[in-house]
C-alpha cells in the first residue's frame, strides 16, 4: 500500500519528468509524435482538473449551508446562480447536454444572456471597485516612507502621466521619459526578476521530478 500510494507516484513523476525533458532534444518524428500525444493527454487531464475545482467550491459552500455557518444564506446564493446557469447548459436550446454548444445569441439564449448580463457585469465591476480604493490609498497611504518608496512613487507618476494623452500636454518630455523608464530600467529589473524566477522554476521542477518535493501530491501524509 505504501508502495502504491507513495513510491509509485514518485516513479511516475520521475519517468514522465525525465521524458518531458529528453523529448525536447529529439527531433525524430517518433519523438515528436509522442510529444503530440502527451500534449493531448495533458489537455484532457486538465479538463478533468476543472471538475476538481468545481467540486471543491460546491462542497465548501454545501458544508457551510449544512452546518448553518454564519452567512450560510450567501452560500445558498452560489447554488442559485450555479443552478440557474446549469439549467441553460443542460437545455442547450433544446439540443440537450450531449451536443455541441447551441448557437443562439444573448437575445435568444439564456446561457449567453446570463453570461453577458450577469457574469461579465459582475466580474468587471468587482475589479473596478479597486479603482476607488486605489484613489483612497493614493490619498492616505501611498507614502514615500523611505528613499526607495519615493523612487517608486516618482516612477509611477511619470508612467501614469506619460501613458495617457494628458501627459503630452504637460510636456513632450513626459511621454518620452515614461517610454525610457519602461524600456530601460524597468526592462532591466523585470529581466533580472525573470532570470531569478526561471532558476526558481527549474529548481522546483527538479525537486518534483526527483521526488524531493511531494507536497503537490496532496493526501496529507507527506
Amino acid at each position, binding site marked *: 500500500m505504501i508502495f502504491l500510494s507513495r513510491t509509485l507516484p514518485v516513479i511516475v513523476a520521475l519517468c514522465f519528468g525525465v521524458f518531458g525533458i529528453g523529448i525536447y532534444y529529439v527531433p525524430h518524428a517518433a519523438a515528436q509524435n509522442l510529444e503530440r500525444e502527451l500534449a493531448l493527454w495533458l*489537455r484532457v487531464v486538465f479538463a478533468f482538473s476543472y471538475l476538481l475545482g468545481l467540486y471543491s467550491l460546491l462542497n465548501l459552500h454545501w458544508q457551510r449551508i449544512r452546518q448553518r455557518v454564519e452567512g450560510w444564506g450567501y452560500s445558498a446564493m452560489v447554488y442559485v446562480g450555479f443552478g440557474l446557469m446549469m439549467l441553460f447548459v443542460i437545455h442547450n436550446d433544446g439540443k440537450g447536454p450531449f451536443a455541441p454548444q447551441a448557437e443562439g445569441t444573448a437575445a435568444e439564449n439564456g446561457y449567453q444572456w446570463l453570461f453577458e448580463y450577469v457574469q461579465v457585469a459582475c466580474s468587471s465591476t468587482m475589479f473596478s471597485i479597486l479603482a476607488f480604493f486605489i484613489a483612497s490609498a493614493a490619498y492616505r497611504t*501611498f*507614502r514615500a516612507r523611505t528613499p526607495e518608496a519615493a523612487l517608486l512613487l516618482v516612477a509611477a507618476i511619470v508612467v501614469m502621466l506619460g501613458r495617457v494623452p494628458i501627459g503630452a500636454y504637460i510636456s513632450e518630455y513626459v511621454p518620452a521619459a515614461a517610454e525610457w523608464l519602461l524600456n530601460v530600467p524597468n526592462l532591466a529589473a523585470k529581466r533580472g526578476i525573470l532570470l531569478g524566477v526561471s532558476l526558481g522554476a527549474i529548481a522546483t521542477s527538479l525537486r518534483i521530478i526527483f521526488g524531493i518535493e511531494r507536497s503537490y501530491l496532496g493526501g496529507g501524509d507527506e
Partner: protein
Amino acid sequence: MIQWLMNIDRRIIFVFVFLGVALPLLANVFLPIKPTRDVISVYDQFEKVAEDEGIVLLSFSYGASTEPEMQPMARAILRHCFSRNIKVVAVCLWPEAPGLARKVLEEIGDEFGKTYGEDYAFLGFKPGNFAVVLNMGQDFRDAFPQDNWGTPLEELALTQDIRTLRDFDFVFDLAAGDSIEFWWIPYGQEKYGFPFAGGCTAVMAPDLFPFLQSKQMVGLLGGLAGAAEYETLVGRQDKATAGMSAQSMAHLIIVAFILFGNMAFFLSRRR
C-alpha cells in the same frame, strides 16, 4: 487642518473618483493620441500579413473581469484585420473567453460583411493552458478537431489546409494572465519561430518589455491606452479613445492625491 483633511471619510474620495471618470465621459472630449513604437510595430506586422494575403491566429486569453480593457482592443485588431482582408482563426485559452470572443467576432464580421468559415473561424475554448499551445504546434487539428459549433475543421474552407502553428503568418494573443509569457513564448514561439505579438491588460504590460527587446515579441498593446493607440492607427475612434479623456482626468486626480498626501505626511513629520 491638515490632520482633518487627512482623516476625511474615504467615501468622499470615492465620489471624487466617480465624478472624475463620469464627467469627461459625459463631456465627450476626444484627446489626440500619439501611437507608441510597440503599437506601431504590431500594426505594421498586420499590414505585412495583409500584403501577403495571409492568415492570422488570434488567441483570446482573457475573461469577463477584464472585459472593459480587452474587448476594445480585440475590436480594434479585428477591424484592422477585416478591413485589410486578413483571414482570422480565433481560439480561446481561457474558459471565460468564448462568450466575449464570439461577440466581437460576429459584431466586426457583420460590420465588414465577412463570411463565417471563409473569412474567419471560431474554434472555441480548450482547457490545458500551455498544453494546448504545445498540441497546436505539433498538430493543429489534434488540439482543435472542430470549431465551436461542432463542425470539423476540414469542412471549413479557411481551416482545411492548416496543419500546425507554422501555417499561420502571425499569432496574436489577447492576454489577461500568464498566456503570453508562460504559454505562447516558451511552448509556441520558441519552437516554431512565427512572428508573435500580444495585447494585454495594463497590469501585465510592464512585465513584457524584456520580450520586446529580445525580439521574442514583435510588439505590444498595453491596456486601454494601447487599444486607444491602435484605434487611432486603424482610423476608427471607439470606446478606448473615448475612455482616454476620463483616464487622463482620473490619473491627474490620483497623482494629485499622492502629491498632496505625501506633502501632508512630511509636514506632519517635521512637527
